[in-house]
């Protein structure tokens, strides 16, 4: 078969998915301004996406902070700059690692579950059943999740920043022997409010993005159990790669 055929087919699928996800997100977003307002579902999804993800995010942030401190220290020592370790670790975490790793962990834990749940609802006609009962399925299933993710992702990111920096502190100060005061002072010197906020803004975007992609893939899943599995894989891959691409674009915009 002509390789151009596959390339073309892949490109058309990419365009269709991108357009579909974009429209799906806006549809769900606009439904949040018309009743009924599903506060209870919003709280339930905040618990699922946020509270239940905190441990995996905390562990990821802790070890990422620790390994970052080790590697950066190794590089800084070569030209005697190890005193700025605290600042470098904090900048890396607040600007990039905190929001990106948090989002990827949420994709792995909650995003995949959202796709699987909605996909299963689709193939067992539960989504059609919602329609039949005169309940708007997008407003019921997607809108509260979008808001929940947009609220909890920044909170998880802030927690990841804090725990990651603590991990860096443990390695920098307690293991590698950098002075506590210098570690903190360099952090204060180098990290500005915008560094912190850029990570928070990114995480709000990532929250909406994760639910839009994972929700879309599950909502329109087809092909039985195998189709749900395929949709879940696609959702995780698209979300993870999309987060990294979006992170680059947002970084160039912010800085």
């Amino acid at each position, binding site marked *: 078969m002509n390789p151009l055929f596959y390339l073309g087919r892949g490109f058309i699928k990419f365009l269709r998915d991108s357009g579909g996800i974009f429209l799906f997100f806006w549809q769900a977003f606009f439904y949040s301004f018309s009743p009924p307002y599903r506060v209870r579902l919003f709280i339930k999804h905040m618990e699922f996406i946020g509270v239940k993800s905190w441990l995996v995010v905390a562990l990821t942030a802790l070890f990422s902070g620790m390994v970052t401190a080790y590697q950066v220290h190794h590089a800084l020592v070569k030209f005697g700059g190890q005193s700025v370790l605290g600042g470098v670790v904090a900048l890396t975490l607040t600007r990039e690692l905190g929001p990106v790793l948090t989002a990827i962990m949420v994709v792995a834990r909650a995003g995949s579950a959202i796709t699987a749940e909605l996909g299963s609802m689709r193939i067992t006609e539960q989504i*059609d059943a919602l329609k039949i009962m005169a309940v708007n399925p997008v407003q019921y299933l997607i809108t509260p999740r979008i808001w929940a993710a947009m609220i909890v992702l920044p909170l998880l990111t802030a927690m990841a920043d804090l725990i990651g920096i603590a991990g860096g502190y443990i390695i920098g100060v307690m293991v590698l022997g950098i002075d506590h005061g210098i570690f903190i002072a360099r952090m204060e010197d180098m990290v500005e409010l915008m560094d912190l906020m850029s990570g928070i803004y990114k995480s709000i975007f990532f929250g909406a993005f994760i639910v839009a992609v994972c929700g879309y893939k599950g909502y329109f899943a087809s092909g039985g159990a195998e189709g749900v599995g395929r949709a879940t894989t696609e959702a995780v891959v698209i979300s993870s790669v999309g987060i990294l691409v979006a992170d680059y674009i947002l970084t160039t915009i912010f800085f």
Partner: protein
Amino acid sequence: MEIIKIKDLKKSFNSFQVLKGVNLSIPSQEITFIMGGSGTGKSVLLKHLVGLLKPDEGEIWFENQDITKLSERELEKVRKKIGLLFQEGALFDSLTVAENVAFPLKEHTKLSKREIEAKVEELLSAVELLPAKDKYPSELSGGMRKRAALARTLALNPQVILFDEPTTGLDPVLQITIMDLINKIKETYGLTCVVISHDLILAFKYADRMAFLYDGVIVEEGPPEKIRASAHPYVQRFLESVFLENKEEG
């Protein structure tokens, strides 16, 4: 008096035309069986009646409005009056039977918690499923799931209920139980029932009217006695298959 009128309904999927111009009137407060072999588009036709599918051409009239022209928001009002019982029930698997039945009441009525509980018990009693109210759908048999779904469909007091193969996959005794239940509910609530099926024996026992869908059109319709005397080759073949089976068994 007819409650639903389908006019020249056409629907294709990709290049395959499933419905080629369906014309059918559904009389009020009667049981109409829509018959046909597998893959003839019976379920596709049913989904058009509640706006789950949009036709390529044609009209569906309900309460003096063509529902094929309605927006999704306008369709929500129609769907409160036309219920659909899915083949597998489509119960929410994260909710118990009672919560499933309470769902439409919580969504669309201002009933208090206690009133909803009473209504749920009444509906579950009507479908003889009250003892299973705290069970999850995964703990129910096929017949129980269909009865639970029927209770949920009844919750909003619809005027019409569409049944998508309600007896498929059930043993003969359970098939009779479900059809008796549908009949009882029709009588009790004054409902119009549209049943998709390919079970001729049940149709002759319970239908007030029958319609045969073949090759994308309704080829025969009328009361069971008219169907029995039909000269249409497809209907005859359908009837022969059942009577032949009975003869062989006899």
